[in-house]
């Protein structure tokens, strides 16, 4: 296991291209030993490029990669001592499950007993213990993916475990089972894990830190809770959470935020003058229907109701702007379309030009 340091790393697939067009714009980052990081973003955001730089499949156009204090930038993948799991299981179909798990260890000078103990331990954790003698070919897709994962886990000296969309091709019903296994394994083995996905559910479930990427940049890196509670910009507010965070244009007078003619109290304060486009951001989970008009309650009109079962999503307009809020089914639906919305001050954030104000 190792700490991974990325120093001024950037990459372009076209030589001499201007930096704004690079697949990965230059940046610095450190990943702590034993923590799990997920890289999440839409296709083309640069997350796979970044992973491939760490694994050595791509040599960065600039910058250095360190595993602990060792500069590995010029080392090929085979000499970086990493384990990789890809979208499709990479296993030896004709070998038994046991032999697949043993294979990464054969060139190490381990005793037979030590190998057997390790393989059996890993197989047990993965829930493959009863199928060790079967050929890999005879297993389901999700079990095959577990073998790929197991091949990384038997080597307990790997610098990092890199996973590239490992659940994408797994049947939706089996995904839960695999997610649970991966999370248990992460907690138990304590490896440094870098997990690439386009699925916020996986990213938020597995990671200590989530890196949200867009257009070749890491737009925010933080714990799942930080991304939810304090998105640094409108993109993170949109990408994390479902439905997305509400962003509402507001007016400013005397350095106070006003909406619908009413002053709104907020968590952060308006600093750095009044220039730029000022908006407030609030999660649909935190907007609620106010019983009576008090502080931070603003009139709104319900225009649509979506029934998701335990929750309903109300689409409302506030002075012509659209916002969404989640309402528990237990709470019912308002009897009138004209409602008052409560904006809890601690959950209401000010953004200037789509960036969160400090």
């Amino acid at each position: 296991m190792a700490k991974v340091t990325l120093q001024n790393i950037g990459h372009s697939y076209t030589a001499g291209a201007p930096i704004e067009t690079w697949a990965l714009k230059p940046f610095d980052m450190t990943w702590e030993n034993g923590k799990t990081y997920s890289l999440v973003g839409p296709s083309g955001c640069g997350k796979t490029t970044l992973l491939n730089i760490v694994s050595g499949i791509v040599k960065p156009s600039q910058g250095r990669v360190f595993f602990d204090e060792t500069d590995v930038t010029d080392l090929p993948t085979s000499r970086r001592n990493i384990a990789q799991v890809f979208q499709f299981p990479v296993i030896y179909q004709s070998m038994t499950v046991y032999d697949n798990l043993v294979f990464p260890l054969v060139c190490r000078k381990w005793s037979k007993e030590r190998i057997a103990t390790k393989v059996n331990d890993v197989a047990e954790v993965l829930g493959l213990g009863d199928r060790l003698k079967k050929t890999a070919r005879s297993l389901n897709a999700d079990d095959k993916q577990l073998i790929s994962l197991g091949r990384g886990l038997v080597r307990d000296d790997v610098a990092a475990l890199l996973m590239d969309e490992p659940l994408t091709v797994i049947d939706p019903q089996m995904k839960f089972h695999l997610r649970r296994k991966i999370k248990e394994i992460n907690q138990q083995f304590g490896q440094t894990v870098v997990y690439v996905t386009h699925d916020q559910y996986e990213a938020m479930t597995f990671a200590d830190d989530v890196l949200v990427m867009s257009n070749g940049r890491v737009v925010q890196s933080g714990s799942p809770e930080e991304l939810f509670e304090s998105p640094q910009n409108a993109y993170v507010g949109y990408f994390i959470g479902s439905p997305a965070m509400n962003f509402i244009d507001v007016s400013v007078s005397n350095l106070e935020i006003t909406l619908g003619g009413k002053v709104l109290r907020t968590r952060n304060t308006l600093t750095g003058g009044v220039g730029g486009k000022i908006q407030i951001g609030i999660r649909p989970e935190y907007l609620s229907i106010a019983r009576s008009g008090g502080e931070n309650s603003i009139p709104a009109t319900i225009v649509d109701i979506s029934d998701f079962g335990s929750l309903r999503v109300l689409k409302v307009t506030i002075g012509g702007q659209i916002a969404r809020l989640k309402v528990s089914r237990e709470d019912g639906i308002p009897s009138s379309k004209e409602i008052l919305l409560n904006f809890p001050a601690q959950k209401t954030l000010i953004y200037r030009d789509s960036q969160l104000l400090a």
Partner: protein
Amino acid sequence: MSLIAKNISVEVDSVQHLSDLSFEMSRGRLYTVLGRTMAGKTSLFRVISGLLKIDSGDLTLDDKSIKDEMIWRRDVAMVYQQFINYPHLNVSQNIAFPLKKAGLKKGEVELRVHEYLAKVGMMEFKDRKVSELSGGQQQRVALARALARKSNILLLDEPLVNLDYKLREQLREEFKSLFSDQGNVVVLYATTDPAEAMMLGDEVLIMHEGKLLQKGTPQEVFENPKSTLVAQIINDPPMNIFQGSISVGNINLPGGVSFDVPSHMTHLNSGDYLFGTVSPAIMLNHQGSLPATVTYEEVSGSESFIYVDSKIGPLVIQIAGIHSFRIGENVAFNLNPESFYVFDLGGQTIGTPSRRKMIK
């Protein structure tokens, strides 16, 4: 004017795919078919489109049996999980192709293509090759082609399952308005996602192991599921079910947990029952009276799902926002018996929570 299934059964290689399926569906309405993998959703679609032969029973459209009708005479349009388009044709040509084949006049074809390009938001891509489009755009084209035909029946088999999370969310909302005006078409939409089924369906059909368990409006099915199985399938996470008993005005649960019988259960005799509660109705808090141990946690973009072991059995608790729990962590929670569903030991529903319909 409707599509009617009467006691349809289908067996393939001595495996029962559909068993004694009966329903009636009206033109102009959207029916979501919700069930887990192997529930029979795809078999049902194959039967309706004519790809799978019925062993017994009948399928009628507007009072005329179509069970022996050949595929191409049934006028069924289909959209699959995979994005299926004609790769050598551009976007407009893809939508026009079946219309031309159906013998529509050139002017009419152009009009229709135009109308449906606009509806799926693909006007600016009309001259692009489909191979140059993203997954979401390709699925929009497939959808436009299927809709433009104005067929008798439109079958959508998990059309969003292969798309990114955010795109799924966006298209789901677009679908809601897109399908709101389906004129004369019977639309069936298969999904494994309860939220999608609830949100899009005029009615929901719950399927399990080849059987139709319940059919009704989303509200009916959600609030009055016929059985524990329906209650689990329509809820995500599945409804928590635990065994207990009712005696002398009390609900008694394992581990000495006891509540006053809530108003919607006062008519029940003493005896053993199954109780159910949805995940968001369980309140996790430090002062909670029931201890539990976290066995697993998942986090979506905006909710946390905490899997716990407790005296009354394993439960899933759902809370808004992102809160992190370690496996093995001790927590406490409260249950609200007013929100309990109650079932007999065979799993049939005998009581559901009363609902506050309106906030004053």
